[in-house]
């Protein structure tokens, strides 16, 4: 009997563990948000986090968007050619970038860059007792470490997405004009005419949500890091995996909420 039940028990244990982890992350996120309304606030930490998460992520997000926009133009052109619809390239590149690829690929790149570094930094602080030291110095680690990073990412990622959108469209334009024979003015006019404000804002809202996810996952896994180099390594890996998967899941849910009516 036990032989038949043990796989079920293992499955049950895995499900329970996953539910418990979800609950802990949710409570952690909720706790972080409540600190937004309880002083003291650490402005300098927020500024540092904005530079680290926002400014220094510009190159990687920009390059990602540039190449994605270019590849997208080529794909849509060859796909569109099958039913003589090559002229849709400018509008589809723009819509695809701002609604979907800008936020998602930008978010994933920031997750790789930022969730990992937050988890490694906070994990190392935990392992070397710096978090305990903060507490004994009357400084709440959630206020000093978590809130500034989560707030900075939530504010900075939409801006990164906006910049990425523009660069992605530029990438599509460059390919369209130089390789696919589009007229410069016509390409730009097509882009502007077909793009709606909601296409852009929906992508920016996604960016804010992804930023929140990225920093929350980095902080959560850092704060719960195991001991030693191995513990920090595991925390870093878990933060990036969790942030990436949650970005993709949240992207689906947000798209469902925004664009099906």
């Amino acid at each position, binding site marked *: 009997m036990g032989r038949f039940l043990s796989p079920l028990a293992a499955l049950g244990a895995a499900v329970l563990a996953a539910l418990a982890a979800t609950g802990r992350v949710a409570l952690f996120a909720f706790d972080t948000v409540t600190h937004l309304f309880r002083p003291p606030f650490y402005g300098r930490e927020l500024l540092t986090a904005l530079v680290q998460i926002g400014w220094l992520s510009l190159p990687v997000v920009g390059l990602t968007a540039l190449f994605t926009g270019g590849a997208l133009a080529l794909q849509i052109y060859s796909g569109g050619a099958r039913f003589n619809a090559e002229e849709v390239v400018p509008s589809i590149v723009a819509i695809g970038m701002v609604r979907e690829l800008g936020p998602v690929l930008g978010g994933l790149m920031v997750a790789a860059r930022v969730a990992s570094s937050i988890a490694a930094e906070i994990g190392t602080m935990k392992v070397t007792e*710096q978090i*305990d*030291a903060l507490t*004994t110095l*009357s400084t709440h680690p959630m206020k000093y470490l978590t809130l500034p990073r989560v707030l900075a990412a939530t504010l900075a990622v939409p801006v990164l997405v906006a910049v990425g959108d523009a660069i992605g469209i530029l990438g599509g334009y460059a390919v369209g004009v130089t390789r696919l024979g589009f007229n410069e003015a016509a390409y730009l006019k097509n882009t502007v005419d077909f793009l709606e404000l909601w296409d852009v804002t929906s992508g920016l809202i996604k960016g804010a949500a992804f930023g929140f996810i990225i920093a929350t996952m980095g902080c959560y896994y850092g704060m719960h890091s195991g001991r030693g180099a191995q513990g920090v390594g595991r925390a870093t890996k878990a933060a990036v995996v969790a942030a990436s998967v949650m970005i993709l899941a949240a992207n689906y849910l947000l798209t469902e909420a925004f664009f099906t009516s």
Partner: protein
Amino acid sequence: MITLANVHKSFGAKPVLQGVNLTVEKGTSMVIIGGSGTGKSVLLKSVLGLVTPDSGQITLDGQDVTTGERDAFLARFGMLFQGGALFDSLPVWQNVAFRLLRGALKRPKAEARELAIEKLRRVGLAPETADLFPSELSGGMQKRVGLARAIAANPEIIFFDEPTTGLDPIMSGVINELIREIVTEMGATAMTITHDMSSVRAIADTIAMLHDGVIQWSGPVAQLDSSGDPYLDQFIHGRAEGPIEALR
């Protein structure tokens, strides 16, 4: 006065503290000794609320440490961590003056820096150290900076977690003397955990030995060699044979 009454703490199925009773009188220096992994750090962290005991009561001057205003409570403490636990993103002086740069004890930056340099001088570090980063310091210097940070806001109670671990014997002696001097001149209550017997003799007024989750023996430092307690004797003489089982 710090009092622990019947304090229990387990991690998972592993009991660490199993009914600790201990009193540290105001203005005295208590050293807690015991083997590695006997829960000495857990004991200190329980007092500070960094670890929550499963049962039992810890009081400071008669008031339960879990009640009352947490910031005001923590402001009475300074702690030197085992590895120094310096914030490596901040220069030395901002580490020392951390408490003075934010929160209730906040002062102007220049004044905080002056105070930090004064505390650095007190622990034997030159003012030039102030602008270095922790990673640029040797282990002994990091311990000194940690010590300067612990005493920066003139706390009433100072905790030292293995202050000499990882230092050479001469540097250990220097740190021990510094701790003793500072505790005496500040009139602070001190709790030190260590398994370094030279620290014990240099720092302690009273000693408590933690073994198997309880205080096995406690008494004044003068009685250390004449206790007649087989556990204590084995420990202070570092014998492999005795009532404390040693894996080999």
